[in-house]
């Protein structure tokens, strides 16, 4: 049985179509990532799945049952971690854990055993009597994760769990997610961080309520069709403004380290340098790089808007 099946899900808020018909499945032991910027519709999908929102259209099957009409079943069996840090700040680590265990009627013995295990991976044991508000951001997230594991759900859903957390804690957090998946838990996670996307087993790139792509991260990485070059320069913005107007460099994007340019016409490094000189663009170096998910994401967005633009015309 596939734990999560979503078919043609649509949801609008008034005139705004937040999710425009998406379908996907999350398999047993899989980490599925919903990747996209703010406002892409990730939270809406997650909230409909955990029965907090009713979908306008489409079908959501959770562990073989339709979410609509089986609210209680869903809420008893799913682990949900909302977007914001949502624990009781004035309760201690242990009180938070026990509270969620109690709500799901987990017996004290089982709670004790579980907490031992959860403390082991979260390393929160030394802080068990500390109030949640006094924890660091990373520890808070780990506590929130631990709380939602107190009823041992087979499926967990996390909405931007690492938002605003430092890189070290983020990577620790993902290690935990991976090990949970390894034990057979199905994980649906949303994030706006592209580096996290590569840690998922399968990802959906989301933009404006649609999936731009749905595949394994490495498959997506291989899908980039043109050679990609990094132009390092001190004047990225001037360079960008000159280049993106050129037909051959229309796939040109600003990155932290410089400009990423897609070489559609196969000019090669020398050819690109020639054009840069001709256009009087100052640069320090030009060399070939591998496309990462962000390049792919930006390209898909661009392709998408060109297609829809053509349709409109």
């Amino acid at each position, binding site marked *: 049985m596939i734990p999560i099946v979503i078919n043609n899900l649509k949801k609008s808020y008034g005139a705004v179509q937040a999710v425009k018909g998406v379908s996907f499945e999350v398999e047993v032991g899989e980490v599925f990532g919903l990747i996209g910027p703010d406002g892409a519709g990730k939270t809406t999908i997650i*909230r409909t799945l*955990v*029965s*907090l*929102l*009713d979908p306008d259209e489409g079908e959501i099957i959770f562990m073989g049952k339709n979410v609509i009409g089986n609210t*209680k079943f*869903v*809420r*008893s069996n*799913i682990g*949900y*971690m*909302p*977007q*914001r*840090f*949502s*624990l*009781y*700040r*004035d*309760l201690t680590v242990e*009180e938070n854990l026990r*509270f*969620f265990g*109690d*709500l*799901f*009627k987990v017996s004290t013995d089982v709670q004790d055993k579980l907490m031992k295990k959860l403390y082991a991976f979260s390393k929160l044991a030394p802080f068990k009597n500390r*109030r949640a508000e006094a924890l660091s951001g990373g520890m808070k997230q780990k506590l929130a994760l631990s*709380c*939602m594991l107190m009823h041992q759900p087979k499926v967990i859903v996390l909405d931007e769990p690492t938002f605003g957390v430092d890189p070290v804690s983020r990577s620790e957090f993902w290690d935990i997610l991976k090990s949970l998946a390894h034990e057979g838990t199905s994980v649906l996670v949303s994030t706006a961080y592209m580096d996290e996307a590569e840690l998922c087993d399968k990802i959906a790139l989301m933009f404006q309520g649609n999936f731009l792509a749905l595949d394994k991260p490495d498959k997506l990485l291989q899908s980039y069709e043109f050679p990609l070059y990094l132009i390092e320069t001190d004047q990225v913005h001037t360079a960008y403004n000159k280049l993106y107007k050129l037909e051959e460099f229309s796939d040109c994007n600003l990155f932290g380290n410089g400009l990423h340019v897609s070489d559609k016409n196969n000019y090669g490094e020398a050819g690109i340098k020639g054009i840069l000189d001709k256009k009087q663009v100052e640069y320090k170096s030009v060399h070939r790089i591998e496309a990462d998910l962000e390049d792919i994401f930006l390209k898909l967005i661009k392709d998408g808007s060109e297609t829809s633009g053509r349709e409109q015309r």
Partner: protein
Amino acid sequence: MHRILYLIQKEFRQILRQRAYLGLIFIMPFLQIVVLGFAITTDVKNVPITIVDEDHSAMSRRLVDAFSVTQSFDFQGLSQSSNQAKEVMKRGLVKLILHIPPDFEKDLKNNVHPKVQAIVDGVDGNTAGIALAYVNQIAVKLQQEWYSEMGLHPEELLEVHLTEVETRMAYNAALESVNNIVPGILAVLLMAVTAFLTGMSIVREKEIGTLEQLMVTPIQNIELVLGKVVPMLVVAFLLFNVGMLGAGLIFGLWMKGNLFSLYLMLVFFCLSTLGLGIFASTIAKTQQQAMFIAWFFMVFAILLSGFFVPIENMPDFIQMITYLNPVRYFMVVIREIYLKGTEIQFLWKEGLAMLVFGLVTFISASLRFHKRLN
């Protein structure tokens, strides 16, 4: 059922960890009773007065003396003419002018009812009304003295009414407003705490996001609501008792009636205020909004409760509206039980009204409280 207990346990842990709550329970009632008990007074004292005496007789002088010695009035001296007196009032120096006409003594002796004119600054209607009543009292008293000096028979003496006969206040003989105000404050405190805190504590969970987390658990709506409401009721109950203790210690105003009757009524009453809190939380997105919504309803409820302004003084249609106000009933109940020790069976109508309103408000507010985000 157990889940409610866990929710309540959690709620109390949170309450006990917030100093603000403890202060609210133990300091606020004392402070309010002290400050408001002394400040909100309908007793009128030291009303500035001037007198125009056109008679200059022995009797008119006694009238002037009577007004200058009482605590109720602050005698600012005689005015030479009616116009001068009015000028003084215009400048705000006096609030009351007493005009003794010429031939006052003569008329009095000839048994022609002399008319003393009183002009009151009506800007503050309450004070004006009470000041006038004092004027009457003093005048009647004086007249009775004079007539007895003139050797009238006691039967004839009884006939003497300058205007109204003095009303004797039962149960609040001194007409001390603190007796009326303090039970009123207790009622208002109760309302504020239950409506505000319930609304705010639910919305706080909305703000932090814990409510969203709680929704995706097997807890049922009613469990969630009761888990919030029961602790607040306990807080309100404590606060109420602290308030009663304060009223006793500070004003010597101890409860006369049956404590358990009052507690029962308190629960009936709080059903509607807790309902209001839940209602506010279903509309509000932030704690400020919740407070504002609760405040909006509370202002009406308090003003139309008979706390400050007697309901009989309100226009008819407003009086009709007050029947929909649970505070109105509780104000009666708490004053009756507290000041008079009225037995509960005489207050069943008010109790029933509060219970009905309470159940309707509470249930409909709870139904509005969905475990959904739509």
